[in-house]
């Protein structure tokens, strides 16, 4: 396992998010439909990355409780997009494990024109475990 600082860098790189832009308004947590299921709340994700406590994030329930609905990504006024951070933390875990549960070949059957493409990609990553 890499050092905490390296892992935080990796999360920033995967997500493309600059957590310093956060103004701590909480609109992500206010929008989250899965809020009560989460142990680390969406707005806390940003500060965990800032404080480089990635260990807690990858071991949290939240990364598997996130619905990838992108409400927080859509509504974040500062372009911080916590959903992308959660997605990145999930990927960190996924990259360390193997075994696809959602196979690429099965995706076309599940396709619905109203589903945003990025959501599919997220779901694909999420259900890899």
């Amino acid at each position, binding site marked *: 396992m890499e050092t905490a600082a390296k892992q935080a860098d990796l999360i920033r790189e995967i997500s493309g998010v600059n957590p310093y*832009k956060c*103004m*701590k*308004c*909480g*609109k*992500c*947590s*206010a*929008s*989250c439909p899965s*809020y*009560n299921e989460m142990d680390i*709340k969406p*707005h806390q994700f940003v500060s965990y990355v800032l404080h480089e406590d990635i260990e807690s994030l990858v071991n949290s329930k939240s990364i598997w409780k996130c619905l990838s609905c992108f*409400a927080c990504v859509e*509504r*974040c*006024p*500062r*372009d911080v997009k916590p959903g992308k951070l959660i997605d990145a933390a999930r990927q960190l875990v996924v990259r360390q494990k193997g075994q696809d549960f959602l196979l690429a070949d099965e995706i076309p059957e599940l396709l619905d024109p109203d589903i945003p493409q990025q959501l599919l990609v997220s779901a694909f990553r999420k259900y890899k475990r």
Partner: protein
Amino acid sequence: MQRIGVFVCHCGSNIAATVDVKKVVELIKLEPGVVHAEDYQYMCSEAGQEKIAVAIREKGLTGIVVCSCSPRMHEATFRKAAEKAGINPYMVEIANIREQCSWIHKDMEEATKKAVILARAAVAKVNLNAPLKPGESLVTKRALVIGGGIAGIQTALDIADAGYEVDIVEKTPSIGGRMSQLDKTFPTLDCSACILTPKMVDAAAHEKINIYTYSEVEKVSGFVGDFTVDIRKKARYVDMDKCTGCGVCQEKCPSKKAPSEFNRGLNKRSAIYTPFAQAIPNVPVIDADYCVKLKTGKCGLCEKVCQAGAIDYTQKDEIITQKYGAIVVATGFDVIKLDKYDEYAYSQSKDVITSLELERIMNAAGPTKGHLERLSDGKAPKNIVFIQCVGSRCSDNRGKSYCSKICCMYTAKHAMLIRDKYPDVNVTVFYIDVRTPGKNFDEFYRRAVEEYGVNYIKGQVGKVLPQPDGQLLVQGVDLIDNKQIKMEADMVVLAAAIEPESSVRKIATMLTASIDTNNFLTEAHPKLRPVESPTAGVFLSGVCQGPKDIPETVAQAGAAAVKVVGLLAKDKLLTNPCTAKPDELLCNGCSTCANVCPYGAISYEDKLINDHGIRETRRVASVNSALCQGCGACTVACPSGCMDLQGFSNRQIIAEVDAICR
């Protein structure tokens, strides 16, 4: 050959910490024409200026180079010092070794090298400088104020009180602006109309103030001291001299479907209307889009009932051309459109409103006669939620990057007024930060919490969901308790961001006044010249320059007025002598320069030319130096190289480039 003195400024440590000033002095002494060079801690100080004067006297200098800050900062200072010591002020050149060198570099060796190069270029230019003499232009002793809100009214009153004529141009049918739409004002809670309408009356009654309402600026030409402005007086279809303001026409008008602009579209008005009862002038206008007579030719009821015979359906727009010495922009603001904020359900529910709409609802002359009620069903609300920062402080592409500054205070005001008048109504405010700097401002907000029991929650609202029973489900977060909150509300009030009034872009373009990415007008200096535009003779008043509340607006309005009065008090202005000059021997009369001149300063005349003994009449360019702004467009356009800019001649610029590349 010039005798040039070079003066290198340390600017404390601003320059000296990055540039080896001693070395600059040492190396610049080797340049042709330089007979004197020295450095000093602060060249702009009195002692520094004295050093220039002494060197001019003792060394017989004919040209000066000061290596210091940007010429925008102190060129005028050093020119004045040189003039006092007896040499032409246009023999002074500035080498900017602060903003363009020491401030932007870290490596001392590199920065010193660059400073020497910049100084060398300036020396090369001074070697070719010629003494120039500024011309004079007359000042028209009349000011134009664009916008008739509190900013424009106050500026106009202050200018007029100093004894100068002022015209206010206001695009709506009445002066008063946004402030006239407000119910109460913070932090004293006095009624907005009670403090505004006397000022409106003062402006209308002032013998030096002339108000053009329902009018817009159409065209601006000229320059500081001598602007010529076309004002379009839109057809009112009502004779302003005959109308007595009795209001019968508005009562009888059968077309009552137009949304009332004054009440933010919350109710309807007649086609012939005054925006509000205290309107100034108290003369209605006919809205051609809704008037049955103007649209179909039938009706004419207002004409029949008007005892004064003031209705005139044949009125046309009128253009008034007037000269001004100074122009003040006071165009104000509007709230942003909320169509990008679907999550707050503004377009889905009548009970989700903006704060400005709440002002109208709370106002006795508003759509609900001042009763706090839901617009959907007229019921009295029991739970009201306020959402702060809607569209402010955003770095996404939906909102504005800035803080709108006034929302924290007006929300505290609204919350307090509601709790005071309707103590059984629960008021909740979702906030990100509460920003209340200002005299008695934080105390005001604390009163809302401590004395009026307003429930402030640190956190934002994620969404507002209209329910089938008409209630609004508000889903937010309390970041202190770390809890997501779902609460029912009867009304939701959005503190929508403010933005400059949309017409300001057009006006700024006409005035060649610079404007930023948010459409706020740029000031000449953010700290030291906050009420002046970089365009000479154009001044800024109110929110068109940046978000501000009423006390700040009034203070800025007064400051702008002082600047205008300072300008109008002068009989003549010195014009910049760095203007274009044609070499008549080279001019072939092609008109290229006249076509590119943005100021209309170039004309052509037939002139007797003596070309090496050949006398003939030729068509040659002639520059009106009062109109020329020295932009240099003609010098680049001229195919025969006959146009040159005095003080920035082609030879001088090439000499500078040569010196840099040497």
